[in-house]
């Protein structure tokens, strides 16, 4: 198979000050979103399942983003939905790293039959379009937040493992690893103490890039009814509900979609900046 180009693509954003400002803006947005998501229960907003407001009301001073078909405050539901989105994505990224990093380290350092078998298995996973793989895993495990998070984790394993493997192969051929080996350090110790810290940069960049993919995929899964289940809100399922009221309450569909887009955009901008800083070779 031909080498897969990075789906996020090569950099096109202009260099220099405009770029730094964009990065700072993205970081600020992510900080606010994370803080709001963490503090949701103590913020002066209604609960996500609290009904009883007028139904499908337009945005107003009382309900900044309007209300949904059950008379629930949309702003409150968005804050809780961002909470869902962030933690599901975080667990997804963590899972992909917990499986992908050790796999990549061992394959890259040892090579040979283990490497061959593991890489063929990853090829089989890569043969699935990524959303289809996530859909399949969620279907097998039954819909829910936990299966969505695990599905994201598995989807992220092949790329994480490949990146760690490639970087490890470079490090394993270096002199300091030779030196460690010659003083009798065990393979495990070399991988953990010498190789891992030196491949941390590419791992961080891949984790950040995959976080954006995870947010988008989580939203897609819940739009398809395979993510977190009612009444807990998620940005994707809110959009699915809003779809029925496009004629009467078009604003309902605006905020959840904008929230997904801004989250993904902000994470991408931060990930690009991280890549420029940690991985200047690319």
């Amino acid at each position: 198979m031909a080498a897969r180009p990075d789906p996020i693509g090569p950099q096109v954003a202009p260099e220099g000050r405009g770029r730094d400002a964009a990065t700072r803006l993205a970081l600020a947005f992510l900080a606010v979103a994370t803080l709001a998501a963490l503090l949701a229960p103590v913020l002066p907003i209604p609960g996500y399942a609290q009904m009883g407001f007028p139904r499908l009301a337009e945005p107003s001073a009382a309900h900044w983003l309007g209300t949904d078909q059950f008379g629930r405050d949309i702003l409150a539901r968005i804050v809780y939905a961002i909470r869902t989105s962030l933690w599901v994505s975080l667990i997804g990224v963590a899972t992909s790293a917990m499986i992908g990093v050790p796999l990549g380290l061992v394959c890259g350092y040892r090579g040979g039959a283990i490497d061959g078998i593991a890489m063929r298995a990853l090829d089989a996973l890569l043969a699935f379009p990524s959303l289809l793989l996530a859909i399949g895993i969620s279907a097998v495990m039954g819909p829910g937040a936990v299966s969505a998070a695990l599905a994201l984790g598995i989807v992220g394993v092949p790329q994480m493992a490949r990146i760690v493997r490639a970087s490890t192969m470079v490090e394993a051929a270096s002199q300091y690893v030779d030196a460690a080996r010659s003083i009798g350090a065990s393979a495990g110790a070399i991988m953990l103490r010498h190789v891992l810290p030196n491949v941390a940069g590419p791992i961080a960049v891949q984790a950040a890039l995959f976080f954006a993919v995870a947010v988008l995929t989580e939203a897609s899964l819940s739009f398809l009814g395979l993510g977190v289940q009612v009444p807990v809100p998620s940005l994707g399922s809110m959009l699915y509900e809003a779809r029925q009221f496009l004629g009467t309450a078009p604003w309902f569909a605006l905020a959840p979609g904008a929230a997904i887009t801004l989250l993904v955009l902000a994470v991408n901008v931060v990930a690009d900046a991280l890549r420029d800083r940690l991985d200047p070779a690319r």
Partner: protein
Amino acid sequence: MGQFALRRLLDAIPVLLAVSLLIFAGLRLAPGDPAEMLAGPDPSPATIAAIRETLGLDRGIAVQFALWLRAAASGDLGLSLVNGLPVGELLLDRMGPTLELALAGMAASLALGFAMGLAAGLAPGSATDRTISALASLGLATPKFWTGILLIIVFGLEARLFPVAGRADYADGVGEALRSLFLPAMTLAIANGPIIARFLRNGVVEMSRSDHVRTAMAKGLPRRQVVTGYILRNALVPVVTVSGLILGNLVGGTALVEIVFSWPGLGSLLINAIANRDYSVVQGVMLVVVAGFLATSLLVDILYGFLDPRIRHGRAP
């Protein structure tokens, strides 16, 4: 060239086998017993046992896989657990609309990607370049299903230019059919065009700076000829790869757009089958889509070897 294509084809076979094993094993782990589902409400144990026997569920798992694989290879993908129809027929009904949408989406993505990528790449650093780059980042971050919803609100409900849902058949008028295809295809273009644009833009910028292009300019070739003959031809190689990936993903990735626009394709069939726990249909759709994805990557690999002879001779840069 033939040898290169054959080698690629042989490489794809073990991957396809591994994929079928994953799909088969994955769905055996899924909750729910297909025999109980087919038996209807309150079946007797004897009925369930009889159904298990007809489905071969009482045999060993390896035998089941072998039987399933042999049947699948001859086009028999079993019966739907919900309505008892042959899965192969269900898939055939839905394949046309999905392929139609995927190809239209691909064409629209290429048109949008080329327009954006060329405009940006031929004037690097300009205001146009920066605007296009910002738009591309935005397009990449926007979920397809939201783009679709926004297009429905603006062009369907407000402007009333296009139908908001469903697929019109070509038998009932080509114009109507194309109109129903327009918004779903545009949704795919907005999601995928920016990827093509980025690769093309960077390829064009890189090529414009290369020595052979400078030589061509210096010897006074017309700009149009330099752009098409010298810059584009070389900038196209990565674009072909990424376009192939996009096309492969489109075959399986139209699901979200199909749901938004109530498009009767494989994706909506898959999502309904999951909701109904119709695992034989889920299995069939997955297998067909992944096979389509692999076939597309194979075609792209071969095309790639054709465009860049270094690759087919194993001297990839």
